[in-house]
């Protein structure tokens, strides 16, 4: 697809995929790697968890480093619980490419599915079938609008939005034109965050003006075009927030090579430490945010296992312990998707960047 999937949770749902034709004739390419628990029930962690559980991890696509980290987390969790993880998805992050994986899970009578939906609605029919087949469904990374599932929220959507604006404010001392370099125009989570950013700006920063939102489709080339267009369109830009790893890394790369612009324009957003390290080091970027993707996968794994073992449920306030991450409480306000929040996002800057390797 035209969108380069080195992206984080920012990965575009059903990112515009051009005729590169990475999908196969079935329109659905699906990959899978299997890891069986080293020690089975013996290693069994939490109490009451059935052993030998099979959990299907269905990331947005199999080429997404961020997702791979999350899957690894999940494998770690299930290994502790004596179950196994099957990772299965496409090379494109389109809903169409994920459906066969859901079907495969149903066919394989999996106990649970942990899915990062490429499209909030498109997967619901298939997910409904899975639920009907008695499979517990856990959503992570980006949520879907389907009923009967638990959403593992990497960090409270509002928090991310506001936190990024606040951070930008500190960089530009709350004044000047800022812009957003997003992934695809259709990215649900992106748009959700941007929504909160706008609220926060309106509420707290009268002197900061959001002048433009441009889309790089998580493709370095497109992101760069969008970015440069942005720069020439808004000469007095002082800050760019890019809540997607492709966007922020491309922007950082450009700024680090155009010091004159870097001097005027501050950059922050969501990024992978591994990618951003050099720009933190050379001062192009002062700081950015993310959460630990493998923890996300790990938590999702425990949640799935507990749901599948009936040791917890989707009711508001029901609890479960997630191994090294201690105990979580499910929040299910009426009408909203039951969810747990991993925790506040980590801010990475010169002080701590070296401690992270994802």
């Amino acid at each position: 697809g035209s969108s380069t999937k080195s992206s984080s949770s920012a990965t575009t749902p059903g990112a515009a995929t051009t005729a590169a034709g990475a999908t196969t004739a079935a329109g659905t390419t699906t990959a899978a790697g299997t890891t069986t628990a080293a020690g089975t029930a013996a290693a069994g962690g939490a109490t009451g968890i059935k052993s030998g559980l099979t959990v299907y991890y269905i990331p947005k696509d199999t080429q997404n480093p961020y997702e791979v980290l999350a899957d690894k987390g999940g494998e770690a969790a299930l290994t502790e619980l004596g179950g196994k993880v099957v990772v299965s998805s496409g090379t494109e992050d389109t809903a169409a490419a994920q459906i066969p994986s859901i079907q495969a899970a149903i066919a394989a009578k999996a106990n649970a599915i942990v899915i990062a939906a490429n499209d909030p609605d498109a997967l619901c029919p298939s997910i409904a079938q899975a639920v009907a087949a008695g499979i517990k469904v856990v959503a992570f990374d980006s949520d879907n609008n389907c009923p009967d599932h638990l959403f593992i929220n990497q960090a409270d959507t509002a928090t991310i939005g506001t936190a990024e604006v606040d951070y930008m404010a500190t960089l530009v001392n709350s004044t000047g034109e800022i812009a957003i370099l997003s992934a695809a125009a259709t990215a649900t989570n992106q748009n959700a965050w941007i929504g909160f950013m706008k609220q926060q700006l309106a509420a707290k920063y009268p002197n900061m003006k959001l002048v433009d939102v441009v889309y790089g489709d998580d493709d370095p080339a497109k992101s760069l075009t969008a970015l440069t267009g942005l720069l020439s369109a808004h000469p007095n830009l002082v800050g760019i927030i890019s809540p997607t790893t492709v966007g922020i890394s491309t922007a950082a790369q450009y700024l680090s090579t155009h010091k004159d612009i870097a001097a005027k324009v501050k950059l922050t957003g969501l990024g992978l430490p591994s990618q951003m390290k050099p720009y933190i080091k050379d001062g192009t970027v002062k700081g950015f945010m993310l959460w630990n993707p493998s923890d996300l996968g790990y938590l999702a794994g425990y949640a799935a296992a507990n749901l599948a073992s009936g040791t917890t449920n989707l009711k508001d306030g029901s609890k479960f312990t997630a191994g090294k991450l201690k105990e979580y409480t499910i929040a299910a306000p009426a009408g909203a998707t039951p969810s747990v929040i991993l925790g506040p996002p980590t801010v990475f800057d010169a002080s701590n960047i070296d401690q992270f390797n994802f």
Partner: protein
Amino acid sequence: MLSETTPPQTAASGAVQVPPTRRNPQTNESSWRGLLRWESALVVALAGALIYGHRTTNFWNATNFFYIGLNIGEIAIMALPLTLIVITGEIDLSVASMLGLSSTLLGYLYLHGWPIGFAIVAVLVVGAIGGALNGVLVTRLGLPSIAVTIGTLTLFRGLAEIILGAKSVGKFPATLTKIGVIPIPHTQIAYSVGCFVVLAIIYGVVLHAMPVGRSIFAIGLQPEAAHFSGIRVKRIKLMLYVLSGTVCSFAGVLWTMRFATSRYDAGTGLELNVVAIVLFGGISIFGGRGSIVGVVLATAVMACIQQALTLRNVDAQVRNIVTGVLLLISVVLPNIATGIHRLRERRRLRNRDRLAHRAPDLHQPTTTTTEGQRA
């Protein structure tokens, strides 16, 4: 000169007189015999795919076949009109964009309170118009279809993007969205597959048993001769493009139903899969050769292999390779014989040369010759 006494392929070649993609290089009856041979090859391939599937857990059961159908449905449907277009020697790369456009439009109209029924009709009409645009540009202005449809590929997708932008429309009436996910009652056949089968039969009859079908083959083989026989070449091509547009937007409706949502990027990139299936089905890219049966078989083979590989948790990447290799084999195999024959011919000449004490410069004819013909 050449054009008078020899067919251009011959002209280009010092060695053998065989047009490329001729299924059976040795005899000229190829067009029929060779084709049959190709379809039987596909049957074998299908058997292989099924056996492979059979040795895969959870493959050989009704639900799975329902799934297989579900996943391939829209692509299969779009392959049918494209088949006819390719047989006339043209091509339509805008199919997937048309699918996206109609899905988008359907969502948009529904969002703006149109009754779904009307919305669908409107979408089909737009599909026809889009197809007509392709058709007019190709037949009336005489532009090369590959360039035109690359243009409309971008244009249609762009229009879709303008219509819905970032939005994605869901919440379609459940009665309809069910169609996308449940089989036809008392069967394990997806509705889209049902439509495909019906359409395939219609197309099969039209192409192989009706005068217009015969005309389509004639056009693909020799447009000028067709014209001289009173066949309305342009009219028929235009018709086919309109048909393609309509059918693709219908596929778009099904797609929307299956995903219960409509977005501008629906089905992006599928055009290559559709083309791949058509070519794999034994349709000559130069037109004039192929059959609906072949395309139907090719669809089945692709679908089964893909699903089996999925169930077997084979890497997604491998699946691309499989598609590519299948495609390549499907066109290279029939031509290998030709290639070898030509090489042998050349070697023969070279030897005769040695006797004649001179190392000449050997020319291999260019592949472009007949591509030119279709130009």
